């Protein structure tokens, strides 16, 4: 199987950026990381086709080896649709989290924190989040 080196390099770069973004606390960056990882995975499936060939439209004059394998393209189409649907849902969740808690980050589990230090009162975050952890504009007043 021959694969294109360029595609492999692009895929690795996408995966690397995706892992970096997924490990961030900011939810918007996590979403971007997920999108990159989804595209990298789709690229991985495309790479698995091997060398590209003719469009897979049946013609008796053409030998079967000349065609591109159509199955991974079908898989990628399904995967793209799923990724699209899920990322829009995740975007809605992030927006909801911003509206409710003015928070754009992965917060600690309140019960875990309480368990760790006895009964600790967890203050709800009232002020605007730190500039380093959010991608939303600062001047927006939280609406409840």
């Amino acid at each position, binding site marked *: *199987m021959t694969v294109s080196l360029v595609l492999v390099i692009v895929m690795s770069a996408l995966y690397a950026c995706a892992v970096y973004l*997924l490990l961030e606390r900011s*939810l918007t960056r*996590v979403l971007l990381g*997920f999108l990159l*990882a*989804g595209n990298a*995975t789709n690229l*991985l*499936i495309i*790479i*698995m086709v*091997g060398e590209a060939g003719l469009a897979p439209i049946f013609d008796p004059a053409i030998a079967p080896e000349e065609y591109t394998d159509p*199955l*991974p393209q079908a*898989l990628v189409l*399904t*995967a793209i649709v*799923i990724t699209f*649907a*899920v990322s829009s*849902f*995740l975007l809605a*969740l*992030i927006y*909801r*989290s911003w509206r*409710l*808690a003015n928070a754009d980050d*992965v*917060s600690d*589990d*309140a*019960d*875990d924190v*309480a*368990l760790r230090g006895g*009964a600790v*009162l967890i203050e*709800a975050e009232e002020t605007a989040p730190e500039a380093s952890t959010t991608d939303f504009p600062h001047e927006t007043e939280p609406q409840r």
Partner: protein
Amino acid sequence: MTALVPLVVLVPLLGAALTLVAGRRPRPQRAIAITSLVVLLAIGAVLLWQVDQVGPLVMEVGGWAAPYGIVLIVDRLAALMIVVSAVVLLAVLVFSVGQGLADGDDETPVSIYNPTYLILTTGVMVAFVAGDLFNLYVGFEILLVSSYVLITLGGTESRIRAGVTYVVVSLVSSLLFLASIAMIYGALGTVTIAQIAQRIDELPVDVQILLHVMLLVAFGIKAAVFPLSFWLPDSYPTAPAPVTAAFAGLLTKIGVYAIIRVETVIFPGPELNPALMVLALLTMIVGALGAVAQADIKRILSFTLVSHIGYMILGVALGTVEGTAAAIYYIVHHIVVQTTLFLAAGLIEREAGSTSISRIGGLAASAPVVAALFLIPALNLGGIPPFSGFLGKLGLFQATAEQGDALAYALIAGGALVSLLTLYALIRVWNLAFWRSADAVEGDQSRLLRSVEEAPLSTSTVSGTRSTPRLMTASTAGMVAVSVALTVFAGPVYAIADRAGQNLDGPSVYIQTVFPSSAEGGELE
């Protein structure tokens, strides 16, 4: 009879469409939802009988033969899982209908609850009957997407917070699964499970182990195997009680189901079995210790859920017929018991207004029915004879003892210890929430005052008590009856699990089911 195979997917899917059409009329919507699950249960029972008597059923979708088309397969394991899931999903649906009726539908937006719940059912069924890896991925996605909606139902702050963790972790596991499908396709040129099993020996051992580990990590996240179990106790307890019950009972077990398929059909070799056994031991112990430390009933139950996943992984990791059979019986037992316990926790929440054991007491006197409905599954989960939990653990320990090395005996010791720790955690709940008198609760005030004063202190607020509708109690009692029936009819159920385990002794039966003409292990022309 093969016509019944796609029906297990189609019935809940059509039901979901109809409930969506009837969105503004709660009464027909509930009737449609319950009817489709009853029909599903009937189909599952017929399938189980048929498969057990005659043999596995294969449906070639669209008439395309196996390596080119999609196949749906129902063997004994799949049929058994379909029946148990249908029972559990039906009981949980009845419970939530009871809750919705009592609350006047203001807490749960029923117009989307029922369709989403039925689509979750569809995803579960697709995962059980899938004959190729990509179809399994699609099944997982269907059930995960509907579970994202259910776990954030109502969109309150705590549910969004928990939901985000759950969604992101599930997404990562799905992408890992998709990437491993891509690698398997690149290496073997197929995604049909039976054909993968035929060709897998042609790969070098290191590539095999790489693919094996990728699949195990993807399914391990879904099944909540330590150290990939961190997300579960955070995200499950905040969801509405019936949703948590269905998730806790079913969703992790579908991960275990996929691991069974991987270990028995795709990679039957013993290379990773010792590693899996160590992970099983760690899952058991870490989960049980977490359960002991918690103070909220739903979180205690979530941690026991993690710890008992370890028992199932142990059975699978043995790689013997006895081990697989014991794991299958244990899955059936655990789906039923864990769901029952979460339903009972939902009843406790209604009766006492909280699930925090430091805030409630005296329930044995004030709600004796709930006390009985909690105690029986709690003893069952703890492995007290003669309940099914004891029988399942006994089967697992016997299968483990046959292996006979130091690791096996360490696992038996760990399993017995974890069983006691589970019992300790649950009896602590019993002593504090049910057995002590309500006056003994520290700083006990009137419940209304308490809910006002303590609400900001904890995520588990005392939200006031409400009367418990009969329908909720009845569905929980029905589940308790099913769990007791698993004890009474342990012989026949264990026999089915045993025959299912024999079918999974290596990939040959599975391959012959899909490719009846080909010789065992031979390549299809």
